[in-house]
């Protein structure tokens, strides 16, 4: 028994990975990729919008992005971005709001997408994988979004949820939201709470493994991120859960940081909001003789 306890202690001691925090955006990253609508029928047009965060880009750096697709892939295999499958009809010019860059692409679901699909797939639907391959001359990244393609007769089709923004609270008192945020103190804990339209979460029917038919309602989840040196207590929240943001004490020399939040309905629906937060200047105390 003693030996076993020793094993546990030593094994726990020997493993303490020190990786980068997933919420801290340090270099070019896709923070959201939204399909509008998220569920479509063959022949439908879908607008793909990609949101990039590109820290340190003051507007002079170009993000070159190209789109590609995978159709009728093995459902057990993910679409792997491949230069050979990149579409030649789109070389994006990105637009910029603060440090968020956006890029859009109109994707038309092929009419023959169900060719070669199994009977089950023809009945239920398939994924059309759309990916983006982006480069900011420093880093190359890939991102993937699955457009749900169901037969035209399948109605209603899923819609994107509506994320209105987020409230910021200090000691449980609302002090602002994404449209108006006061300058925040450094090294002080603030609470962020997502604000969304609950009526945009849809009900849907599902058959479980015990052959029971259930009417379920979409459960929203939120992935949070922020610019370098910020601290979040976690990067995922569900429903009306809150997270805690702590601005850095010293590092941010531009006295600002950006908070990003992505809302997902769990069925491919997605929404995105970003807001720039001004920080009070760093107070430097120097000793005088």
């Amino acid at each position: 028994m003693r030996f076993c306890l020793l094993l546990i202690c030593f094994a726990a001691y020997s493993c303490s990975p020190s990786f980068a925090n997933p919420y801290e955006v340090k270099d070019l990253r896709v923070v959201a990729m939204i399909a509008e609508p998220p569920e479509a029928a063959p022949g439908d047009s879908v607008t793909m919008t990609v949101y990039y965060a590109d820290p340190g880009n003051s507007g002079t750096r170009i993000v070159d992005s190209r789109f590609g697709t995978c159709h009728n892939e093995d459902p057990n295999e993910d679409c792997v971005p491949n230069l050979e499958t990149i579409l030649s009809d789109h070389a994006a010019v990105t637009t910029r709001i603060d440090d968020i860059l956006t890029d859009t692409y109109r994707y038309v679901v092929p009419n023959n997408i169900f060719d070669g699909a199994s009977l089950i797939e023809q009945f239920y639907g398939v994924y059309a994988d759309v990916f983006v391959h982006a480069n900011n001359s420093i880093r190359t990244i890939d991102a993937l979004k699955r457009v749900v393609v169901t037969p035209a007769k399948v109605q209603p089709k899923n819609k994107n949820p509506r994320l209105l923004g987020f409230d910021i609270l200090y000691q449980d008192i609302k002090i602002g939201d994404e449209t108006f945020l006061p300058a925040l103190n450094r090294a002080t804990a603030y609470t962020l709470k997502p604000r969304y339209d609950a009526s945009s979460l849809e009900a849907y029917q599902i058959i479980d493994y015990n052959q029971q038919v259930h009417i379920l309602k979409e459960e929203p989840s939120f992935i949070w991120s922020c610019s370098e040196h910020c601290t979040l207590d976690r990067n995922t929240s569900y429903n009306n859960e809150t997270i805690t943001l702590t601005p850095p004490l010293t590092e941010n020399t531009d006295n600002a940081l950006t908070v990003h939040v992505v809302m997902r309905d769990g069925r491919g629906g997605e929404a995105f909001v970003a807001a720039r937060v001004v920080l009070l200047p760093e107070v430097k105390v120097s000793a005088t003789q």
Partner: protein
Amino acid sequence: MIVSNSRKLPAKKTSTFNPSSFSLSLFFHSLQPSWTWKITPHLTHTLTFSLTYRSNAANTPDIFFNENEWQIGGREELKLKISQNFTLLMGTDAHEILYTGAARVPFFLPYPQFPSPQQPFPPLRDLKGQESVLDWGVYVEGDYRWQKLRLIPGLRLEEITYAGRMHQSLQPRFTARYDLNSHIALKAATGIYQKYPPLQNIALTIGNPDLGLENAWQTSVGFEWQITQALSLDTTGFYNYLWDQSSPSTATRLIGKTLQPLYFENNQRGRIVGLEVWLRHHPYKNFFGWIAYTLSRSERINPTTPTWFLFSQDQTHILTLIASYIFPYNIQLGARFRVVSGNPTTPIRGAVYDSDTGSYLPLNGAVRSARLPLFHQLDLRIDKFWVFNRWRFSLYLDIQNVYNQKNPEFITQSYDFSQSQYFTGLPILPVIGIGGEF
């Protein structure tokens, strides 16, 4: 068509996986008394009883896996010397194995519905199960000697019951040995071996109780050379072919009007080829030790994989050096040094941000085409014995990993697979223990 899983999934708990703290524990206790009765000069009866307890556990603050196994068994064997050249061995054995397993793991069981709802992190699910195996067998083995030749044909009949189903097994085996001279002997063996699949592949909520027996055909050739009175060399080349090995599966099957996921299938084949060299210094003048080296390659293939790939624990080189010396006053000093090839790994050549989940998907390179760094470790042990009339008491100090080598056990990855780190094994570990032999 409706997809069904007759075993109801327990309630989910939503939490995030935190790999920053991880612990492992392994327990193993075994008791094996044996009684031999020489009934006549030509007939010997041996009775063996065994009781084994095994426990494995892995824990993080959020997830865990633990399994316990009790194994109770017995063997009765009769050895009858029919003539100067022929000895017959007959026996029967039975084992009962009780297995319990429980786990809380991030696991997302996709609904049959399309699109299958997804979440940023798979919900934690409690899985648990228990299984018992009753393994009963009879065997017969003839040992025929003719001049320098020795032939040992054998046959084992076995009935293995698990998941409420009985499986019969017939396992023929054959061994031959030829003494070239008084120092060198050639040897060869072949046989069919069958065993029940790993119980966690049957018992847990996501196991398949219909898995069949796993099969292996093992064959070997080699020679033994008694170099000196104390020194011998044993060299064996081997080839094993495995089939019906259980492995994870995404297949489903139709039962009535329902489609049920299988989770595991007997659909994997394997092949292992290698060479073992064992140079032994038998106990002589207070010293014993050996150098053992194995060169091997173990591969697997599934119906879904186009080519053979390395087995997850394939180890090309295994070198073991053992030395032990008994000093005056019943003090024994032993050392063990091991060098082993690192286990195969699949390299990650990048990652894709998956916007449906907010997580990253790894872009894998060729399956198991890379390896962890070489494992090497020195262990030392010093024993002090006190010998009494009917038993022996010992006190020992065992120091594992003397020079504190950080041997990588597996690789952990950052959230976007851009950073990786080795999870290393035990550091230097001194253990003081006592023992008794009766």
